[in-house]
């Protein structure tokens, strides 16, 4: 954007005053610059306000010891989801700005400069994928998975915390790019040679490279952790074919993460070598070839789509079965379909570049591989439909999301098959048709799923239910907003409108752009409703407490403990004798009482909190910041801090804490007494105030 003379290069690297949006807005007060300055100010003011509130209420120590340094998978999961919501807010506002720009910029320059617009679609995409979707699903898995397996924690609690803090550090870089400097205009995929120094000399691409690199390393670690948890920490008797569907999809997602994230890390690091050290992996000249980037990026990028969607499929399986009051239909089919999707996801990456000139045979082979994924996906949808068959369906908020998902997702699948046909892909690739398609998959397929899971498991995590009325309002806005915002884009794409267009020179596109803009505002209203819902729910929490822990007549083991659960999850590790142990024990005659007192308790060892993971994540982000601005000293010192923290941790003692059996017994017996005093309520009243978290048993 602006090239300014660097100040004191040894200390501040490439930084010049012009890199501050406030200075730019002062010197050139266009609306575009003022919006940039306002966004930067919002970040600064937001950080200051949070810090001031923490100081005023004296919560720093509590936050540090109970949350930030915690290795408890539950708290890590919740922190991931908080990050996801913060980043979702930013990326959604950016989407609204882009839609507004396109609605007014018809034969008119609009209010955003082309460069600002380029940064907006790049941050929107990067954030939504790497810092909204990934943290949301990782957090959801982190919270729920150990419960469903009958485990007390993840396999590697410390690595879990490092993965979280690398993600937070990377998200922090995204926020820093609003205040200092600029962001890439190369889109979320960062295709070279456009992102090479020759064409993008500023700091924007470097922000993108390091944010994505830190995020992808964090995700690789999270994937290893999740897979190892499933392989090693299942409760006695929890065979693979007895796991809940969400555990299955978590396993498949984690395997995808392990294999798909490293190609991304390699691709961004090679691009960094090109930019920093004059290598020529992807440059136009001296032997570089961007096709190598395209292959590596999509070798990550396509499995990534299934990394995003599979956990949501797991949530839907839980939700549909629970709220249909019925066994999941076709469990084995669902498992096979999930694994088939995971394997096939690695066979289709070339469909992202059907239009780069490979032979018809290659295109056809990858087109067919792509369509094949439609079969297991279709099977899953039908499995959920048949789960409702002869059930008793309750239209709670998570179930509404599941229903909206099934009907909307199939339309996205429809357009996906169209895109999988190479001759049709030639027509709509890189147009708004493609944009409409992937939003059609990711909003119902990921966002609705995560929101369904958020509503479903919130009472478990916090001990009270979310407000039902505001949940329905938010749901309505998400669905209506989605259709208004994205269906016009199919029409515009079929009319040949390219994506990432800052101004439009075709007046006949106007009505569709207006509708899409209205849709964007409805989506913003949906997010606002979620915020109001959270506030209302916290305010009214006294009347929605569900301490008994089972407000929805749940099926997985997570519902068999108190809400919120104790630090160690299970006072006594459960013995698994079936596919739905908790549900069957509740409902079936002759089964052990799930609320019976265990015969004995034992000491439980839990990990102590650790500051080293916080230090590692934040120091890595500082090192990245140093690299971005070419403040080499800072980068070197910060990297040394990372190494030092790892070394120090390896010498650390007393990394565990033992909770004596007596304390476990006291807590557990107290809870069991409370359960016995809690009235069981029928499903008709589950959203009413009488629901205290104990489901009425109907055989």
């Amino acid at each position, binding site marked *: 954007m602006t090239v300014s003379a660097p100040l004191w290069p040894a200390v501040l690297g490439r930084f010049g005053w012009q890199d501050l949006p406030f200075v730019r807005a002062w010197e050139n007060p266009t609306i575009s610059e003022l919006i940039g300055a306002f966004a930067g100010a919002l970040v600064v003011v937001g950080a200051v306000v949070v810090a001031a509130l923490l100081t005023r209420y004296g919560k720093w120590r509590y936050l540090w010891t109970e949350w930030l340094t915690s290795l408890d998978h539950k708290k890590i999961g919740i922190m991931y989801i908080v990050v996801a919501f913060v980043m979702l807010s930013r990326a959604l506002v950016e989407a609204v700005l882009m839609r507004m720009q396109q609605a007014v910029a018809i034969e008119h320059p609009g209010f955003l400069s082309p460069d600002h617009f380029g940064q907006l679609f790049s941050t929107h995409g990067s954030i939504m994928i790497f810092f909204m979707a990934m943290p949301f699903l990782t957090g959801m898995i982190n919270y729920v998975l150990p419960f469903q397996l009958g485990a007390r924690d993840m396999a590697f609690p410390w690595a879990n915390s490092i993965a979280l803090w690398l993600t937070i550090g990377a998200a922090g870089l995204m926020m820093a790019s609003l205040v200092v400097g600029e962001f890439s205009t190369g889109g979320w995929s960062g295709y070279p*040679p456009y992102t090479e120094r020759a064409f993008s000399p500023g700091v924007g691409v470097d922000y993108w490279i390091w944010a994505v690199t830190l995020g992808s390393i964090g995700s690789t670690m999270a994937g290893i952790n999740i897979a190892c948890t499933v392989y090693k920490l299942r409760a006695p008797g929890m065979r693979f074919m007895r796991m809940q569907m969400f555990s299955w999809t978590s396993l498949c997602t984690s395997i995808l993460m392990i294999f798909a994230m490293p190609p991304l890390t390699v691709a961004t690091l090679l691009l960094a070598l090109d930019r920093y050290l004059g290598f020529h992996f992807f440059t136009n000249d001296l*032997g570089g070839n961007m096709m190598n980037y395209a292959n590596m990026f999509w070798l990550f990028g396509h499995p990534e789509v299934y990394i995003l969607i599979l956990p949501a499929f797991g949530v839907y399986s839980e939700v549909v079965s629970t709220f249909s009051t*019925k066994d999941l239909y076709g469990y084995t089919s669902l498992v096979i379909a999930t694994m088939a999707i995971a394997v096939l996801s690695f066979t289709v990456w070339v469909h992202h570049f059907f*239009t780069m000139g490979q032979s*018809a045979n290659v295109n056809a082979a990858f087109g067919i591989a792509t369509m094949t994924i439609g079969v297991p996906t*279709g099977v899953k949808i039908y499995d959920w439909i048949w789960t409702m068959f002869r059930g008793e369906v309750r239209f709670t908020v998570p179930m509404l999301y599941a229903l909206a998902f099934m009907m909307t997702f199939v339309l996205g699948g429809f357009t996906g098959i169209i895109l999988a046909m190479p*001759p049709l892909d*030639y027509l709509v690739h890189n147009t708004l048709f493609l944009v409409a398609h992937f939003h059609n998959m990711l909003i119902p397929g990921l966002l609705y799923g995560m929101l369904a899971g958020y509503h479903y498991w919130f009472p478990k995590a916090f001990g009270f239910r979310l407000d039902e009325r505001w949940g329905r309002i938010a749901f309505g806005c998400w669905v209506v907003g989605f259709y208004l915002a994205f269906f016009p884009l199919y029409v515009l794409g*079929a009319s040949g409108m390219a994506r990432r267009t800052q101004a439009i020179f*075709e007046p006949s596109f106007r009505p569709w752009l207006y509708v899409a803009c209205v849709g964007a505002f409805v989506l913003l209203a949906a997010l606002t409703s979620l915020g109001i819902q959270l506030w209302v729910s916290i305010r009214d929490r006294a009347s929605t407490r569900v301490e008994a822990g089972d407000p929805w007549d749940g099926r997985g083991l997570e519902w068999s403990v108190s809400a919120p659960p104790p630090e160690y999850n299970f006072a006594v590790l459960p013995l698994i004798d079936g596919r739905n142990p908790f549900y069957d024990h509740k409902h079936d005659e002759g089964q052990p009482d799930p609320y019976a007192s265990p015969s004995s308790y034992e000491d439980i060892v839990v990990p102590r909190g650790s500051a080293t993971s916080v230090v590692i994540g934040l120091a890595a982000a500082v090192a990245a910041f140093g690299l971005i601005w070419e403040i080499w000293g800072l980068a070197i010192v910060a990297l040394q801090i990372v190494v030092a923290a790892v070394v120090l941790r390896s010498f650390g003692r007393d990394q565990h804490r033992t909770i004596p059996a007596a304390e476990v017994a006291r807590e557990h017996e107290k809870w069991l007494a409370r359960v016995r005093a809690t009235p069981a309520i029928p499903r008709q009243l589950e959203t009413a105030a009488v629901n205290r978290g104990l489901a009425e048993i109907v055989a």
Partner: protein
Amino acid sequence: MTSASFLMLGLAGCTALSHGFLNPQGPVAGHERDLFVTVSIVLLFVAGPVLLLTPLFAWHYRLSNRGDAYRPKWNFSWWVEALIWIPPAGIVIGLAILLWHWTQIDDPYRRLPGAAPIEVQAIALDWKWVFVYPDLDVAAVDRLVIPAGRPVHIRLTSGTVMQSMLIPQLAGQIYAMGGMTTELNIQAHRPGRFRGENTQYNGAGFQHQKFVVVAVPSADYDCWAAAARRGKRTLDAQTWRRLSARSIIALPVEFAHVTPNLFERVLETTGGMSHSPTKAAR
């Protein structure tokens, strides 16, 4: 007043689609439109049942409907399994056969039947398209003149970053990449003006990188070529340097005389010789 403006909006909405492949003006886009319609009809049989059954089952088996059998443990049936695996697999196999066939037919590299094609070399720059007619020794920026009813064979490369050329009413798109050559075959049924564009973001001038394809009757094409050759402007090294700078051209420009082998030179300077044997043999 409001109803009138709504009507206007509605009409404008329909005209949008007339700029795209649903209003094809050449054989390639025509095929592709037909394929689009066929595939869409087939897919109705996939999406239809889900769209019907989801609300139907959800509503019919709602908690308050006490009239129906409740089978909480029913979770498997071979009949249902057959129903949900076999028909979708069959549809995908059918579509796969269709896909294989049409991907070969509509391969952008495949020469179109008919007269010998007009040869055009397209070079993508920031933010403009340069079209060189090697047989005529003329070139044009942001305007591609072609004779209606005759095949046109375009070879593409990029003098800058990666770009993608799309002329929705005539044919699908193909990328133009530095050091590499791609090919596209197009044809217009009848005279007319069609929109062409770069669809791959390449910086601040991206939205302006549109060009017009002018299809003219054969006789007019020859006249245009003759007139273009008589023009004063030449596309020499100096002009090329100016064109290569990042800029937007306000109006299309034409050049008589082009630096010999300009296309090959661009390929070479973007590293082409080091890794990409030309596919001219195809």
